[in-house]
């Protein structure tokens, strides 16, 4: 037990040092302040390995410094050294020593490997299908039939099981504060299981190079209380107001612009269009960010995006639509009205 107490103590000192460099708010993507079980396991393992590393480093450093500074004489000043060219005991020591350290590290490693990759999902877990696209994220909730983009809402303290699939190239799903990443490989379903335990907003990002706008493939995870999550789910399940019942004139005009535009072939809005290769816009207005999570969802940004997507996100598949003036404003108003 005392070893455990010691390592816990040392861990907390190191943890305090590492996370003390900057608080959580300043570093929203830190891996050093995990907010999920998976993140915690990894973090503890990381601290443990870091301590062993520090021990080895200290030994090497001391030996190195002593060796260099004791013996750095000028040529000709000292007689040629007589020390041995080998020493069996020493050599055995520095073979067996590191081997023991490796053993100490590998046991918790293997344990965590198996613990973090359960073959079947925990009983009450929430299944979510994550579809990675060049360069945005789609989240589907098979149970509630909700489909959203770039913003993943999950309840706190409930196991989450993500089925990761890709529609084009290899991506990687990574929310640093919620644990390790998992590649999203086309043709293959990868799983990621974790349980977030602190509500909050956690930014994530694609971590596998996936083409021109790899840097612009970000997203957010909203960890909510069960009540908030239920409310959000209900909102997302709601059918949007039918086009002919829209009251606001600008919004109604915008709806017409949308319906007549090429937007419909790629984007889906429940009851309006059936496109599926681009993000679902049914509840676009309820999201905080847009365009792969690279900017805030404000009317200004939406207008800029529609005018020239490639300027904001190189390589983006959405063509500039050539909309201007009132038409553009109406369309923006319509999109923002889709709560």
């Amino acid at each position: 037990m005392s070893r455990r107490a010691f390592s816990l103590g040392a861990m907390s000192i190191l943890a305090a040092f590492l996370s003390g460099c900057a608080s959580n708010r300043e570093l929203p993507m830190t891996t050093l302040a995990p907010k999920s079980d998976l993140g915690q396991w990894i973090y503890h393992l990381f601290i443990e390995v870091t301590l062993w590393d520090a021990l080895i480093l200290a030994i090497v450093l001391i030996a190195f410094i002593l060796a260099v500074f004791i013996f750095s004489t000028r040529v000709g000043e000292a007689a040629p050294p007589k020390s041995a060219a080998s020493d069996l005991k020493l050599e055995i020591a520095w073979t067996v020593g590191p081997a023991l350290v490796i053993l100490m590290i590998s046991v918790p490693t293997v344990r965590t490997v198996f613990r973090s990759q359960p073959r079947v999902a925990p009983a009450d877990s929430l299944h979510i299908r994550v579809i990675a696209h060049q360069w945005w994220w789609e989240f589907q909730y098979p149970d509630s039939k909700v489909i959203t983009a770039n913003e993943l809402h999950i309840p706190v303290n409930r196991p989450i099981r993500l089925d990761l699939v890709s529609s084009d190239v290899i991506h990687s799903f990574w929310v640093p504060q919620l644990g390790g990443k998992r590649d999203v490989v086309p043709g293959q379903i990868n799983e990621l299981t974790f349980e977030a335990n602190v509500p909050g907003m956690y930014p994530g990002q694609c971590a596998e190079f996936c083409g021109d706008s790899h840097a612009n493939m970000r997203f957010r995870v909203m960890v909510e209380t069960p009540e908030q999550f239920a409310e959000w789910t209900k909102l997302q399940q709601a059918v949007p107001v039918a086009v002919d019942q829209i009251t606001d004139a600008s919004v109604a005009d915008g709806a017409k612009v949308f319906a007549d535009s090429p937007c419909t072939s790629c984007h889906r809005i429940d009851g309006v269009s059936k496109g599926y290769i681009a993000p679902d816009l049914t509840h676009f207005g309820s999201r905080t960010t847009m365009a792969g999570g690279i900017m805030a969802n404000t009317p200004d940004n939406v207008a800029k995006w529609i005018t020239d997507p490639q300027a904001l996100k190189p390589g983006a598949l959405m063509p500039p639509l050539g909309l201007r003036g009132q038409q553009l404003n109406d369309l923006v108003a319509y999109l923002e009205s889709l709560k």
Partner: protein
Amino acid sequence: MAAHPKPLHVEPANYLQGGGVIGWLTTVDHKRIAVLYGVSALLFLGLGGLEAMAIRIQLWAPGEHFISARAYNELFTMHGTSMLFLAVMPLLLGTFANFMLPLQIGARDVAFPRINALSFWVSLMGAILLHLGWFFGGLPDAGWFGYANLTERMYSPGLPLDFWTLGLIVAGASTILATLNFLVTLITMRAPGMSYMRMPMFCWAIMITSILVLLAFPPLTVGLIFLLMDRFFGTHFYIVSAGATPILWQHLFWLFGHPEVYIIALPAFGVISEVVPTFSRKPLFGYPMMAYSICLIAFLSYGVWGHHMFATGMGPVADAAFAVTSMLIAIPTGIKIFSWIATVWGGSLRMTTSFYFALGMILEFTFGGLSGIMHASAPIDLQQTDSYFVVAHFHYVLFGGAVFAILAGIFYWWPKVTGKMLSERLGKLQFWLTIIGFNGTFFPMHFLGMWGMPRRIYTYGAGLGWTHLNQLETVCAMILGLAFLVMYINMVWSIANGEKAPPDPWDGRSLEWSVASPPPVYNFARIPEVRGRDAWWIVKYGRTGSRGLAAYMSGKPPQPSAADLAPPAEPIHMPAPSIFPLILSIGVLVASLGVIIGEWRIVILGAVTLVVAAIAMGFEYPTFGQESHDPMAAPSSGGTDVRKVGIWSFIGSECLFFASLIATYIIYKGRNIGGPGAEILEIPLTSFSTFALLMSSLAMVLALAAIQRNDRTWMRVWLGTTIGLGLVFLGVEAYEFTHFYHEGLSLQTDLFGQSFFTLVGFHGAHVSIGVLWLATLWFASFGEKFDGSRSLSVELAGLYWHFVDIVWVIIFTLVYLMQQVKGA
């Protein structure tokens, strides 16, 4: 040599003189080739450095617009590719190993001097191919790792990735040729008394590295060939919709990629193991342990490639296995670090720039090794992989390890190579700039990684807390760039005005210091006789270290005497220059360009040039097929001819090539969706061709037996039979392929079709090359000199032929007879 004849007057005095431009283009001297490698590698080192600085400027602040996203992706791709393939590897292997191996083991040249020249020219063509994109619509931009399926034409249209694919295939082939040469040289050409356990540690490192290269590059080549076929011939090796998986590329790539880390690190260890003892004036501590740990590292490195793929979902069992194996590598690596420190311990240290860099390497590499243990732990790796933490880690390994070792090596061997000393003052300045710049650039990356910054992003958002450290790194990267500028200035200054170097400026231990600086063309006037480890040291100080001490104590270490350096008393026949390596490599470049622009006439032009130059190289010397017609330059070791060791090493490398193809076949056979499967294969027909091939092997050995008893007629008969049976085999294969094509199975049909045609087709290509080789021999056998003494030429062709036969034994079993067995 009983009497002492008057030394010959030898022109030129050293290897750098004479010959003019043509002399350099046709040189087969390992020292000149090393210099050529060095010049091109230093050029690409500079270029790669500039690319890195552009990358750093772009990351100065969130939303920076110094370069575009595309340009950024091109830069990090080319930075990685050129630093590894065109700068670091050529410096360590092409320059250091090429120059120093023969000198350290007391040989006059490498085993195959013209193949050595060939490997340089081919590697240059590879480098040109990689950079031709400058002029044709952009550089490659899929990362040095080129993960499929992003590299498919669907996601990366245009020429850049075509150049990348072919450039890497070509560069890889040249590396295989170069290291094959080193391996054979080390096995067969050591001076008398130079047992394996007396070789300098650098030679050990290169020997093991050569084995690594020979066995690690074939999987990469196969992976690249698949990509090439996908991009040009419509196959689906990495195309998901056909049932294939892009993960295959990752396995093939990392099967090469992890050994590649050691292909770079081991020679670096070798350099450090030379520099540290020299400047500590002590023998290397724990020599056998050091040699053994190199072997262990190399062996383990084949079993750890999966640790690059923890995030891809290989399953907990594979994760755990790869994690533990990866950690094990820390043990032999630790042994090396401790042994270096123990070498320094108690030494009489001479603090030169070279030693500074070597000591720097020991520390920085320790850092890199320790963070490596972290990623070896699979769960931790899930947080660190593809983040800046990994960027920090591998720069500590590749820069802190390999580049520091290269810098130590440059300062150490520069006097030997150029005959001039580098400025120590500028060197120390460069060292401190490097230390500050390097640690300032890469140490903060650990924190950026832990704070969640992913790799390979051309821009990042504000408010993530990454800005300050990025700015610090950019500033330090500029300092690092300055350090290299100082080095280039130092080099130019040294060549122009540097102090003339004595033969042994550092009181060295190995044989390269026993010859003049720069060395004469023939290296050694007399082949040295080796009496122990540290051969030259023993000559200077005796086994007890008592001899010559007074000279050392007066601050002037003993030097080889004028008589030792005198020109040889008898003529030394060195290999003659040859233009064909250059022509052959131009053929390679032309053919590759033809493939890329899709102009088949150009491909044929290049291929014809290539084949003609290859055959010309074979006929260039009176002794057919012999690399060097000077028995002194290519002695045989224990009845094992250099060429025989060479062809066996090549066969060993081919084993991995075919294993990769067979693995792909087995994997994809199980994933085949739709289209004809293996049941289409016909046993009676292939049984016949199998029989033909087996009998051709019999004919081949009978031909060898005939020539060995000097019976030329029967040799021709049996050789003719072999060729005939080989042609029968090829004929059946051609019939089979056309038959399948008519049945609806083509290269593009399905996964079975593509992997079957690729595997069997490559085997067929080997048979065709064998037939060509045997036919050449058959014609050559009408020459006057073709008698029993040339039986080795027949034996070599035979070894290749039998190897092709045993590959068919495997293919016949796994592909044809096991057609009903399900794949993986």
